[in-house]
């Protein structure tokens, strides 16, 4: 039994409603603005957590909690939301990150009202993408998730913020242009049962037949379109600039959740509807994924700006997700979705921590820091946990996710893809595992340079640890990384029940 009727619609509407209410609050009343945002995101968190529990406890499968209303009858557009295990786990992730994001933005004092308004609008879009089962609304929510980013980075960002904001927006909108053509193509190319009206309904489109030629073209369009948002090399360049320039909560949300929209789109629309097309391109996806892992990690190693290190580590970790999707058997897909979840929590934590360190020490230059663990032990501990999860130490969530992805990749026997008689995917998996070693190097380098070594007393003698609301993010996200690492079965169970239907045969 869910707490409220139409739980998914409530999850969608509460941030939107909060954004509208905030618009009406007097500009000076900062506390009210923050509390409204916190209340709305608490509702989302509570509901999505409970939905996951219900889904698990009642042994549900497939799409559940559906709400449906016709929007435009003739082109066949309807508001149709429903969630399966994959959607639910990502909704939970979004709710967690935005909940923490609201607290991480507690110190935003410049144009606070507008900031929270845009943040809540954006998160409405993210929730919408994860639960839409109508491709049309899927697209609509996708755009809603991208656009507020322009102002969020442009107004509250740091560094070359206008440039980064415009670059990010145009890259992602170019991606959405590819998506739109792919989606319209699917709408027309789907061979439906005789007499059935054309529709954007994803459940219908995933059952429909498409010609092989169409699938090959359409999958490539969708892969490029979604891939841009997922940060695939070489279309990733918007991501480090964007993440580094964005304010803390926006980086958290963007790297933590928005990049997952891209991977989720490839999974749900690409693999789910166009398996034959996917089959033609999975070798490319797999190869680019390994480039992502290795290149992201390698570039992260050379950064001096702490935020850029984390931003490039996101590019690297999204490679793991894409490798799982490319291997596309049940184990690998489960690992990929778990990696989305794990990376979302981890990178959310990282960006929150970088924000805190910057706020207190007024620098993001790694070379200029050192020994900060003495001044901010809590932050240092949380950073260490995140770092360990980042290179997949057993006992952290990163380990479980990466293990599943690599196992899946080793098991993927794609007879058609071979290099000199050896199947491709095991080779890719070996490459990826080697690249993870580089991850360990850059994480440890950052930990050592920033938190250990001699402390510059004159400069950092006065800086303190996290305070009051800042602890929320550290405690929630940090402990989750460990909890999932030690006891991953609820989450893998939740995901595992739904990825079966998305496996490419």
């Amino acid at each position, binding site marked *: 039994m869910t707490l409220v009727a139409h739980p998914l619609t409530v999850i969608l509407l509460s941030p939107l409603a909060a954004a509208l209410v905030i618009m009406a609050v007097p500009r000076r009343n900062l506390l009210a603005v923050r509390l409204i945002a916190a209340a709305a995101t608490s509702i989302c968190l509570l509901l999505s957590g409970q939905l996951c529990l219900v889904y698990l406890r009642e042994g549900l499968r497939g799409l559940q909690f559906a709400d449906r209303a016709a*929007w*435009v*009858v*003739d*082109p066949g557009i309807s508001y149709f939301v429903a969630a399966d295990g994959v959607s639910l786990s990502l909704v939970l992730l979004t709710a967690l990150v935005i909940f923490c994001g609201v607290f991480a933005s507690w110190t935003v004092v410049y144009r606070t009202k*507008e900031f929270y308004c845009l943040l809540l609008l954006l998160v409405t879009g993210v929730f919408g993408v994860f639960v839409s089962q109508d491709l049309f609304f899927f*697209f*609509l929510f996708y*755009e*809603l998730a991208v*656009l507020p980013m*322009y*102002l969020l980075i*442009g*107004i509250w960002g740091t560094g070359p913020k*206008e440039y980064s904001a*415009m670059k990010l*927006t*145009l890259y992602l*909108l*170019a991606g*959405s*242009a*590819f998506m*739109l*053509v792919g989606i*319209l*193509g699917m709408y*027309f190319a789907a061979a439906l049962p005789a007499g059935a009206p054309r529709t954007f309904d994803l459940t219908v489109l995933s059952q429909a037949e498409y010609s092989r030629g169409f699938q090959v073209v359409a999958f490539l369009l969708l892969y490029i379109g979604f891939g841009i948002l997922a940060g695939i090399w070489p279309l990733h360049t918007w991501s480090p600039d964007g993440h580094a320039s964005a304010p803390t909560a926006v980086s958290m949300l963007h790297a933590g959740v928005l990049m997952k929209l891209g991977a989720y789109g490839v999974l749900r629309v690409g693999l789910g509807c166009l398996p034959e097309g996917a089959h033609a391109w999975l070798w490319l996806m797999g190869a680019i994924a390994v480039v992502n892992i290795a290149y992201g990690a390698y570039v992260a190693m050379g950064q001096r700006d702490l935020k850029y290190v984390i931003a490039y580590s996101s590019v690297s970790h999204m490679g793991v997700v894409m490798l799982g999707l490319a291997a596309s058997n049940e184990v690998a897909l489960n690992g990929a979705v778990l990696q989305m979840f794990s990376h979302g929590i981890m990178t959310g934590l990282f960006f929150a921590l970088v924000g805190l360190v910057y706020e207190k020490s007024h620098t993001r230059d790694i070379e200029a820091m050192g020994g900060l663990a003495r001044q901010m032990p809590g932050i240092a501990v949380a950073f260490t946990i995140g770092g360990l999860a980042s290179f997949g130490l057993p006992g952290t969530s990163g380990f479980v996710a990466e293990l599943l992805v690599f196992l899946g990749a080793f098991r993927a026997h794609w007879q058609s893809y071979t290099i000199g008689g050896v199947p491709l995917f095991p080779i890719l998996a070996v490459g990826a595992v080697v690249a993870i070693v580089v991850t360990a190097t850059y994480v440890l380098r950052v930990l050592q340079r920033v938190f250990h070594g001699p402390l510059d007393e004159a400069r950092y003698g006065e800086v303190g640890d996290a305070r009051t609301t800042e602890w929320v993010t550290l405690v929630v996200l940090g402990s989750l990384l460990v909890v999932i690492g030690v006891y991953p079965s609820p989450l893998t169970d939740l995901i595992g029940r739904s990825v079966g239907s998305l496996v490419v045969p």
Partner: protein
Amino acid sequence: MMAEMLRQLRPELLTLAAALVVILADLVQTGGSRKWLGWFAAAAAAAIAASLIGRWPGLAAPVSLWGGAVVLDRLGLVFKGIFLLGVAVTAIGSADFAAERFRHLGEYYALLFFSALGMMLMASAGDLLTLYLGLELSTLSLYVLTAYAKESPRSGEAGLKYVILGATSAAVYLYGASLIYGSAGTTVFAAVAQRVAWQGFGPGLMVGIILVLAAFGFKIAAVPFHMWAPDVYQGAPTPVTGFLSTASKAAGFAALMRVLMGPMLEAASGWVVFVVAISGLSMVVGNLLALSQRDIKRMLAYSGVAQAGYALVGVAATSSLGTLATTFFLAQYLFTNLGAFLIVTMVGSSARDDQITSYHGLSRRNPALALALLVLLLSLGGIPPLSGFWGKLFLFWAAIRSGLYGLVLIGVLASVLSLYYYLMVARAMYIEPAGGREPVRLQPSAVAAVVVCVLVVVGLAYPGPLLELARRAATAFF
């Protein structure tokens, strides 16, 4: 018989009457504020537009008058609604502006009505000559309106440019029409259609069609016939620019569809390639040239060139779906673009120039105004769920169904490009500091018109009813 004809033409006659009444009303009043004239003109236009609803049931089958010289059908009716609403919004929007700037107020509104009357004739034309009469009436009125700000040399220059290029395009139209007449032996569309169906189309007819297409390319400001648009848009009084860029453009499309889809449908295999080329070029070139503009009116002029390219996608689809899409697109574009120009009017009147720098910090100075402009610009950029998105969606939808994949890809990518310059305005309003600029002085009448426009643009997120209307109207040719 005569009474029946007059009944059929009641909207046109009422429009004519409204024009005359406005002039007379202006003569009667000698002193005091004459702002009410704008409201009066708007109310009259809106009332005539509302009266069109009564004509809808009677036009389930087209009615032909004077041996086919005028054809009344539902598509024409929808376009007449678009023009009259355009007059209404422009009249409200310029009530304050015009009362402050112009000495001859009655004529200003009368010219708007005359222009709309010409457009209505274009939308109902069943004959090449009727079409020409409508074209001339609407364009002549617009020449005068463009040059209406007599104290501004720019306005006069814009009027002159518009006259010269407009006259050239009218000549091109006449030459094309004469070639069509020479080939088909008649100027009545229905008869031309029969000839084309029997005899196929020869080179004379084809050249005729291309010349007519070029003439309307001028009216809708499509590449390569767009060069007048930036200068004229920049120089004309801003509310007139708004009217010019929306209603006049819609009239060009109404006429273009009348010619191409009616008599020339059989010859589509010959002319579609030209429409596709003009459409693709307009989308790409219009958006590229808009990128570097510093003056918002010039930027919107180039954006309007690109928007004409989008609307042409529906014409290129040559299907009832395409007609529907173009009609829907133009209807929503009227409100989107007119709303944007009315905001530009207010900011321009306050700041005394139309540079994008005048918009710096607008979100701090006039938050509601900035939000309204943001919404309208995002709609122009095709961001869901605003009306412009649906307009483009239906266009691309029609094009895919007609197999024009390349055009759709160009259109979608050009849309992304266009967001760059729309976002540059957003950047000026939201990110740049105000730098000591004063809040914009709001003109109550323009604010009212902008509110209407924004409500329409946002309300069309639920496009069902307008879509259904356009769908029923679009069966005119197929």
